[in-house]
């Protein structure tokens, strides 16, 4: 499992991380502002299409068709890309994908690459792996640049720097840009327009000099071999058309059967992610084109836990995800904790169902519980992934993985049944709980229980028990009065 990446090693469990995040007022303000803005925009542009539900239904069906015949579509894609002058590589896990990409870059003799924002390369920890090989990867998406300059971690699928507001970004640019290249202009303000301009100037020379680019892919069309990148800033276009070599890393689930299937996804994706009728730029390319763009194109097909996910007949629907992040923006839990608390490159509701499947539930056991099961994510999902259903399914798996005939939780439940059957035992137990609970509690709540009892407290806080039970209070104050 350690070869898969996805989760950040040493991250605390979700409840622990969430507690820290909830105490951060600035973070909660930033998140509330951003998610409110995007929610309203998404609803407005989705409402413009009176067949939104029919589009979702079609998208879900296309993804189901693809998943059920994935081997066939991948082989078709490989054949079409190869016929168009590209090379296709297969990577079983993160470590293998990183080795392939590093070797391809080394073969060009280059030591620097420009990158388009990509969840797949985040997932496999490509930048860190390349750094070990002496290769510097420059993130060119504005939000990824913010994360890279701040030696930070992404906290959102679409807008990885959503946890930072404009003033924090200004301060970061002023302090850090000079260490990576073109410094921030003197007297930079926190006006988003000026910040975007600073990013443009900072990256310009890198684009113009770059010989190798690394990208992800939003879609790859099996019958034509066409790969698609959806973006806003033009950094994607720069990376896709100026360098000599292009290396694209994509999860095997990103394949779609036909060119015309894109008519569904290109309507759903921009409206669901940035709340626009269409994102500023979408690029599609098929292999290589003489005299236009890279002369070398490599497509790396990444498994990294996806075939394990596919094997779960309930969980496999998660592979339909098009990474729009609408589920993050509507989630009451995400809005309060932010993305870092999930300890994974895939945060929010989709992360809670994708991460444990990619790395195994035992590696991310708290994530299926990082939800209230309110269902807002399911309603917002443009490909109709039933996230609450998968959450419940994974919760059962977590419990199953931890089950033991004499587990402390099972013993406690058995004891509870005996105690609750007897008023005398219950009264004694309540007195003990009142004492014990108040010893354990901090600031009125019980967090982690000691010893074998932590199985109960790992995923939930409990209020400290009151000083006396209701039954005691009743006897003292009300008994005998009418």
């Amino acid at each position, binding site marked *: 499992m350690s070869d898969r990446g996805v989760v950040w090693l040493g991250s605390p469990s979700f409840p622990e991380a969430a507690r820290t995040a909830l105490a951060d007022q600035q973070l909660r303000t930033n998140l509330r502002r951003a998610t409110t803005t995007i929610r309203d925009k998404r609803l407005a542009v989705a409402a413009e299409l009176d*067949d939104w539900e029919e589009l979702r239904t079609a998208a879900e069906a296309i993804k*189901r068709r693809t998943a059920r015949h994935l081997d066939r579509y991948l082989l078709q894609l490989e054949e079409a890309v190869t016929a168009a002058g590209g090379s296709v590589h*297969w990577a079983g896990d993160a470590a293998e994908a990183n080795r392939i990409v590093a070797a391809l870059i080394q073969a060009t003799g280059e030591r620097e690459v420009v990158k388009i924002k990509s969840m797949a390369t985040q997932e496999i920890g490509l930048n860190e792996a390349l750094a070990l090989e002496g290769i510097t990867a420059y993130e060119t998406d504005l939000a990824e640049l*913010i994360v890279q300059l701040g030696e930070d971690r992404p906290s959102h699928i679409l807008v990885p720097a959503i946890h930072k507001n*404009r003033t924090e970004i200004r301060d970061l640019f002023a302090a850090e840009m000079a260490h990576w290249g073109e410094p921030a202009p003197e007297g930079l303000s926190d006006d988003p*327009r000026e910040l975007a301009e600073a990013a443009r100037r900072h990256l310009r020379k890198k684009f113009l000099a770059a010989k190798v680019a690394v990208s992800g892919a939003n879609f790859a*069309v099996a019958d034509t071999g066409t790969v698609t990148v959806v973006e806003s800033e033009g950094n994607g276009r720069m990376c896709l058309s100026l360098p000599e070599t292009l290396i694209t890393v994509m999860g095997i689930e990103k394949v779609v059967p036909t060119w015309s299937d894109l008519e569904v996804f290109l309507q759903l994706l921009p409206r669901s992610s940035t709340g626009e*009728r269409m994102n500023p*730029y979408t690029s599609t390319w098929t292999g290589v084109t003489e005299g*236009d763009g890279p002369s070398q194109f490599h497509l790396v097909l990444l498994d990294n836990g996806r075939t394990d996910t596919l094997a779960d007949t309930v969980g496999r629907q998660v592979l339909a995800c098009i990474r729009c992040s609408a589920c993050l923006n509507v989630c009451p839990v995400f809005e309060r904790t932010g993305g870092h608390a999930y300890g994974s490159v895939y945060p929010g509701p989709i992360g809670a169902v994708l991460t444990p499947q990619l790395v195994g539930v035992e590696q991310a056991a708290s994530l299926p519980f990082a939800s209230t099961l309110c269902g807002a994510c399911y309603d917002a999902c443009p490909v109709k992934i039933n996230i609450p259903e998968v959450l419940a399914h994974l919760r059962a798996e977590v419990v199953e993985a931890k089950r033991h005939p004499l587990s402390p939780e099972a013993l406690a439940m058995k004891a509870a049944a005996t105690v609750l059957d007897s008023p005398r035992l219950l009264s004694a137990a309540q007195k003990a709980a009142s004492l014990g609970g108040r010893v354990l509690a901090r600031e009125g709540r019980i967090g982690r229980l000691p010893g074998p009892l932590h199985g109960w407290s790992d995923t939930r806080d409990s209020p400290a028990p009151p000083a006396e039970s209701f039954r005691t209070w009743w006897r003292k104050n009300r008994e005998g009065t009418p």
Partner: protein
Amino acid sequence: MSSRETILARIRGALADVPAEEGPEHVAVERAYRRSHLEPGQDPVELFAERVADYRATVHRAAPEDVPAVIARALTERGVGRLALPSGFPTELLPGGSRQWQSEPLTVPELEALDGSVTLAAVGIAVTGTIVLDAGPGQGRRALSLVPDYHLCVIRAEQIADDLPDALARLDPARPLTFISGPSATSDIELDRVEGVHGPRTLDVVIVEQSVEQSVEQS
């Protein structure tokens, strides 16, 4: 076993529940969505103009004979004097005057030194306000309409498709395609859209109206 074989074997193992006789065509895909979101009687050219303008691009509508004058006015307003000109761009559309037109071959630094580019388009999409370039005649390779900070795109009214499904059907995926919806923008700061990052920060779109003769011919 190669990784390719391993992954394919894992996929087949994972899909043990899929009956062997099932083909992709047996998984129903109901396409009950609309082919077009245009209202009956709605003019696609009018809608295209509105939607392009929504992205804060500037839209000009011109009769064929007025195109050179409209381009001249736009370039003067923007203060754009040195431009990249893709091969195959119709010379009769070009305004006179003191402007410098640079033809291919152009290196990337040469493109960077120019003020802008003027291109044709392959297809327009009314509902989304999108222009699509396919690197065909008059459009140039992708870098040409990307590196200079200003892009003026000339599109003929009859190139505008109602909606995305029709537009994709008109396009050839074997060509490198660029779908452009307004100038370069980002939503990365507080999820609020601001225009102007790496692509051209100013986009002018000139719609060439159909002449009377063309309309008569089509009807």
